[in-house]
Protein backbone atom coordinates (compact mmCIF):
# COMPACT_ATOMS: atom_id res chain seq x y z
CA UNK A 1 0.00 0.00 0.00
CA UNK A 2 1.39 3.36 -1.00
CA UNK A 3 1.92 5.78 1.81
CA UNK A 4 -0.44 8.72 1.72
CA UNK A 5 0.41 12.02 3.27
CA UNK A 6 -2.01 14.32 5.02
CA UNK A 7 -0.90 17.84 5.71
CA UNK A 8 -2.86 20.36 7.68
CA UNK A 9 -2.36 23.99 8.52
CA UNK A 10 -4.48 26.41 10.52
CA UNK A 11 -3.95 30.11 11.07
CA UNK A 12 -5.82 32.56 13.24
CA UNK A 13 -6.32 36.12 12.06
CA UNK A 14 -8.73 38.63 13.62
CA UNK A 15 -10.74 35.92 15.34
CA UNK A 16 -11.19 33.76 12.27
CA UNK A 17 -9.29 30.51 11.87
CA UNK A 18 -8.56 29.35 8.33
CA UNK A 19 -7.93 25.63 8.07
CA UNK A 20 -6.18 24.14 5.04
CA UNK A 21 -5.87 20.43 4.37
CA UNK A 22 -3.89 18.72 1.62
CA UNK A 23 -3.89 14.95 1.07
CA UNK A 24 -1.74 12.97 -1.36
CA UNK A 25 -4.16 10.69 -3.11
CA UNK A 26 -4.67 9.64 -6.77
CA UNK A 27 -8.45 10.34 -6.72
CA UNK A 28 -9.30 7.96 -9.58
CA UNK A 29 -12.91 8.71 -10.56
CA UNK A 30 -13.48 5.28 -12.14
CA UNK A 31 -14.40 6.81 -15.51
CA UNK A 32 -10.93 6.95 -17.03
CA UNK A 33 -9.55 4.31 -19.37
CA UNK A 34 -6.06 2.91 -19.31
CA UNK A 35 -4.45 4.16 -22.54
CA UNK A 36 -2.60 0.87 -23.18
CA UNK A 37 -5.10 -1.81 -22.18
CA UNK A 38 -8.26 0.21 -22.91
CA UNK A 39 -9.78 -1.01 -19.66
CA UNK A 40 -11.44 1.22 -17.10
CA UNK A 41 -9.20 2.18 -14.20
CA UNK A 42 -11.06 1.20 -11.02
CA UNK A 43 -12.39 4.03 -8.88
CA UNK A 44 -10.16 4.95 -5.98
CA UNK A 45 -11.00 8.19 -4.27
CA UNK A 46 -11.44 9.73 -0.86
CA UNK A 47 -15.06 9.63 0.25
CA UNK A 48 -14.91 11.47 3.51
CA UNK A 49 -12.74 13.98 5.33
CA UNK A 50 -13.66 14.94 8.89
CA UNK A 51 -12.27 17.66 11.08
CA UNK A 52 -12.51 17.81 14.83
CA UNK A 53 -11.77 20.79 17.01
CA UNK A 54 -11.62 20.08 20.75
CA UNK A 55 -12.93 16.54 20.16
CA UNK A 56 -16.06 17.78 18.40
CA UNK A 57 -16.67 17.10 14.72
CA UNK A 58 -17.15 20.52 13.18
CA UNK A 59 -16.61 19.86 9.51
CA UNK A 60 -17.29 16.91 7.21
CA UNK A 61 -16.47 16.91 3.53
CA UNK A 62 -17.87 14.20 1.26
CA UNK A 63 -15.99 13.80 -2.00
CA UNK A 64 -16.73 12.24 -5.36
CA UNK A 65 -14.09 11.21 -7.88
CA UNK A 66 -14.58 14.68 -9.38
CA UNK A 67 -12.43 16.29 -6.72
CA UNK A 68 -8.96 16.85 -8.18
CA UNK A 69 -5.99 14.58 -7.55
CA UNK A 70 -4.18 15.32 -4.27
CA UNK A 71 -7.28 16.99 -2.84
CA UNK A 72 -7.09 20.33 -1.14
CA UNK A 73 -9.81 21.81 1.03
CA UNK A 74 -9.98 24.95 3.06
CA UNK A 75 -12.63 26.23 5.45
CA UNK A 76 -13.00 28.95 8.04
CA UNK A 77 -14.31 28.91 11.58
CA UNK A 78 -14.88 31.51 14.25
CA UNK A 79 -15.24 28.96 17.07
CA UNK A 80 -11.55 28.20 17.59
CA UNK A 81 -8.56 29.93 19.09
CA UNK A 82 -4.82 30.04 18.62
CA UNK A 83 -3.10 27.05 20.23
CA UNK A 84 -6.16 24.81 19.77
CA UNK A 85 -5.76 21.33 18.37
CA UNK A 86 -7.36 20.23 15.11
CA UNK A 87 -7.74 16.57 14.19
CA UNK A 88 -8.26 15.72 10.54
CA UNK A 89 -9.03 12.25 9.22
CA UNK A 90 -9.91 10.80 5.81
CA UNK A 91 -11.01 7.49 4.36
CA UNK A 92 -11.40 6.30 0.79
CA UNK A 93 -13.64 3.86 -1.09
CA UNK A 94 -11.04 1.08 -0.90
CA UNK A 95 -10.79 1.16 2.87
CA UNK A 96 -7.59 3.18 3.17
CA UNK A 97 -7.51 5.90 5.77
CA UNK A 98 -5.25 8.35 7.52
CA UNK A 99 -5.26 11.09 10.06
CA UNK A 100 -3.20 13.88 11.50
CA UNK A 101 -3.26 16.52 14.20
CA UNK A 102 -2.09 20.09 14.04
CA UNK A 103 -2.14 23.19 16.18
CA UNK A 104 -3.78 26.50 15.25
CA UNK A 105 -1.11 29.16 14.80
Amino acid at each position, binding site marked *: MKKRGLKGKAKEREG*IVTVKILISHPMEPGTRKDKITGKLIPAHFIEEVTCKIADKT*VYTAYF*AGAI*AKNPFISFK*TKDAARGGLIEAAWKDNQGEFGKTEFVIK
Partner: protein
Amino acid sequence: MIIKRRIVLKGVLAAFAAGSALLASAGAYSAWPKAAFSSKTQTDILQSLYGDIEAVPSGKIKIKTPDVAENGASVPVNISTEIADVESISIVVPNNPLPLAGLFEHGGGILGYVSTRIKMGKTGDVIAVVKSNGRLYTAKKTVKVTLGGCGG
Protein backbone atom coordinates in the same frame (compact mmCIF):
# COMPACT_ATOMS: atom_id res chain seq x y z
CA MET B 1 -45.97 -9.86 41.03
CA ILE B 2 -47.59 -9.37 37.64
CA ILE B 3 -47.46 -5.59 38.01
CA LYS B 4 -43.78 -5.66 38.82
CA ARG B 5 -43.01 -7.72 35.76
CA ARG B 6 -44.90 -5.27 33.59
CA ILE B 7 -42.85 -2.34 34.90
CA VAL B 8 -39.61 -4.16 34.23
CA LEU B 9 -40.75 -5.05 30.73
CA LYS B 10 -41.69 -1.42 30.01
CA GLY B 11 -38.30 -0.26 31.22
CA VAL B 12 -36.51 -2.72 28.98
CA LEU B 13 -38.58 -1.70 25.98
CA ALA B 14 -37.95 2.01 26.57
CA ALA B 15 -34.19 1.45 26.89
CA PHE B 16 -34.18 -0.57 23.69
CA ALA B 17 -36.11 2.13 21.78
CA ALA B 18 -33.77 4.88 23.00
CA GLY B 19 -30.72 2.83 22.07
CA SER B 20 -31.85 2.10 18.54
CA ALA B 21 -32.80 5.75 17.96
CA LEU B 22 -29.29 6.77 18.97
CA LEU B 23 -27.76 4.23 16.60
CA ALA B 24 -29.95 5.37 13.72
CA SER B 25 -28.96 9.02 14.10
CA ALA B 26 -25.26 8.17 14.37
CA GLY B 27 -25.51 6.08 11.22
CA ALA B 28 -27.18 8.87 9.26
CA TYR B 29 -24.45 11.31 10.20
CA SER B 30 -21.44 9.33 9.11
CA ALA B 31 -22.71 7.80 5.88
CA TRP B 32 -21.36 8.80 2.51
CA PRO B 33 -24.45 9.87 0.50
CA LYS B 34 -24.08 7.26 -2.22
CA ALA B 35 -27.40 7.90 -3.99
CA ALA B 36 -26.63 11.60 -4.46
CA PHE B 37 -23.10 10.90 -5.67
CA SER B 38 -24.32 8.43 -8.28
CA SER B 39 -27.21 10.60 -9.54
CA LYS B 40 -26.79 11.96 -13.03
CA THR B 41 -28.91 15.11 -12.93
CA GLN B 42 -28.92 18.14 -10.69
CA THR B 43 -32.60 17.65 -9.83
CA ASP B 44 -31.99 14.07 -8.64
CA ILE B 45 -28.99 15.16 -6.59
CA LEU B 46 -30.88 17.92 -4.79
CA GLN B 47 -33.87 15.64 -4.26
CA SER B 48 -31.64 12.96 -2.79
CA LEU B 49 -29.64 15.31 -0.55
CA TYR B 50 -32.26 17.73 0.62
CA GLY B 51 -35.69 16.35 -0.30
CA ASP B 52 -38.40 18.65 -1.63
CA ILE B 53 -36.82 22.01 -0.89
CA GLU B 54 -36.79 24.43 -3.80
CA ALA B 55 -33.41 25.97 -4.54
CA VAL B 56 -33.58 29.75 -5.00
CA PRO B 57 -30.92 31.62 -7.01
CA SER B 58 -29.10 34.02 -4.72
CA GLY B 59 -26.79 36.96 -5.35
CA LYS B 60 -25.21 36.45 -1.96
CA ILE B 61 -23.09 33.51 -3.08
CA LYS B 62 -19.78 34.25 -4.74
CA ILE B 63 -18.03 31.59 -6.79
CA LYS B 64 -14.44 32.28 -7.67
CA THR B 65 -12.96 30.15 -10.44
CA PRO B 66 -10.75 30.91 -13.40
CA ASP B 67 -12.88 31.99 -16.41
CA VAL B 68 -10.78 29.71 -18.57
CA ALA B 69 -9.32 26.57 -17.06
CA GLU B 70 -6.37 25.27 -19.05
CA ASN B 71 -6.42 21.95 -17.28
CA GLY B 72 -9.78 20.43 -16.40
CA ALA B 73 -8.09 17.96 -14.06
CA SER B 74 -7.58 20.64 -11.47
CA VAL B 75 -9.88 23.66 -11.41
CA PRO B 76 -9.66 25.80 -8.26
CA VAL B 77 -13.10 26.66 -6.89
CA ASN B 78 -13.66 29.10 -4.08
CA ILE B 79 -17.17 29.63 -2.75
CA SER B 80 -18.05 32.24 -0.18
CA THR B 81 -21.40 33.54 1.00
CA GLU B 82 -22.78 36.18 3.34
CA ILE B 83 -25.76 33.95 4.14
CA ALA B 84 -25.74 33.23 7.89
CA ASP B 85 -25.92 29.81 9.56
CA VAL B 86 -24.71 27.78 6.63
CA GLU B 87 -25.42 24.10 7.23
CA SER B 88 -23.87 22.72 4.10
CA ILE B 89 -22.41 23.65 0.73
CA SER B 90 -22.39 21.36 -2.25
CA ILE B 91 -20.62 21.71 -5.57
CA VAL B 92 -22.39 20.43 -8.68
CA VAL B 93 -20.88 20.28 -12.15
CA PRO B 94 -23.78 19.35 -14.50
CA ASN B 95 -21.51 18.50 -17.45
CA ASN B 96 -19.52 15.87 -15.56
CA PRO B 97 -20.53 12.20 -15.87
CA LEU B 98 -21.38 12.26 -12.15
CA PRO B 99 -22.30 15.87 -11.42
CA LEU B 100 -22.00 16.01 -7.62
CA ALA B 101 -18.35 16.78 -6.88
CA GLY B 102 -18.46 17.41 -3.18
CA LEU B 103 -20.68 18.03 -0.20
CA PHE B 104 -19.37 20.01 2.74
CA GLU B 105 -21.26 19.79 6.02
CA HIS B 106 -20.77 22.59 8.49
CA GLY B 107 -20.92 22.25 12.22
CA GLY B 108 -21.24 25.15 14.63
CA GLY B 109 -19.01 28.18 14.07
CA ILE B 110 -17.98 27.29 10.53
CA LEU B 111 -18.28 30.23 8.13
CA GLY B 112 -19.96 30.09 4.72
CA TYR B 113 -16.78 29.44 2.81
CA VAL B 114 -15.12 26.56 1.02
CA SER B 115 -12.12 26.31 -1.23
CA THR B 116 -11.08 23.21 -3.14
CA ARG B 117 -9.98 21.93 -6.54
CA ILE B 118 -12.29 19.95 -8.81
CA LYS B 119 -12.16 18.08 -12.11
CA MET B 120 -14.22 19.23 -15.07
CA GLY B 121 -14.79 17.07 -18.14
CA LYS B 122 -15.71 19.95 -20.43
CA THR B 123 -16.80 23.58 -20.53
CA GLY B 124 -19.86 24.23 -18.40
CA ASP B 125 -21.29 25.56 -15.19
CA VAL B 126 -20.09 25.15 -11.65
CA ILE B 127 -23.09 25.31 -9.33
CA ALA B 128 -22.91 26.02 -5.63
CA VAL B 129 -25.83 24.98 -3.43
CA VAL B 130 -25.93 26.49 0.04
CA LYS B 131 -28.26 25.21 2.74
CA SER B 132 -29.15 27.56 5.56
CA ASN B 133 -32.03 27.35 8.05
CA GLY B 134 -33.78 24.71 5.97
CA ARG B 135 -33.64 26.74 2.76
CA LEU B 136 -31.54 26.24 -0.35
CA TYR B 137 -29.73 28.94 -2.28
CA THR B 138 -27.79 28.49 -5.49
CA ALA B 139 -25.44 30.36 -7.74
CA LYS B 140 -23.50 29.32 -10.80
CA LYS B 141 -20.52 30.29 -12.86
CA THR B 142 -19.44 29.13 -16.29
CA VAL B 143 -15.91 27.87 -16.70
CA LYS B 144 -14.35 27.29 -20.10
CA VAL B 145 -12.22 24.17 -20.08
CA THR B 146 -9.59 23.72 -22.77
CA LEU B 147 -8.44 20.23 -21.71
CA GLY B 148 -10.90 17.88 -20.02
CA GLY B 149 -10.05 16.13 -16.79
CA CYS B 150 -12.38 13.16 -16.63
CA GLY B 151 -10.88 10.99 -19.37
CA GLY B 152 -13.11 8.74 -21.47
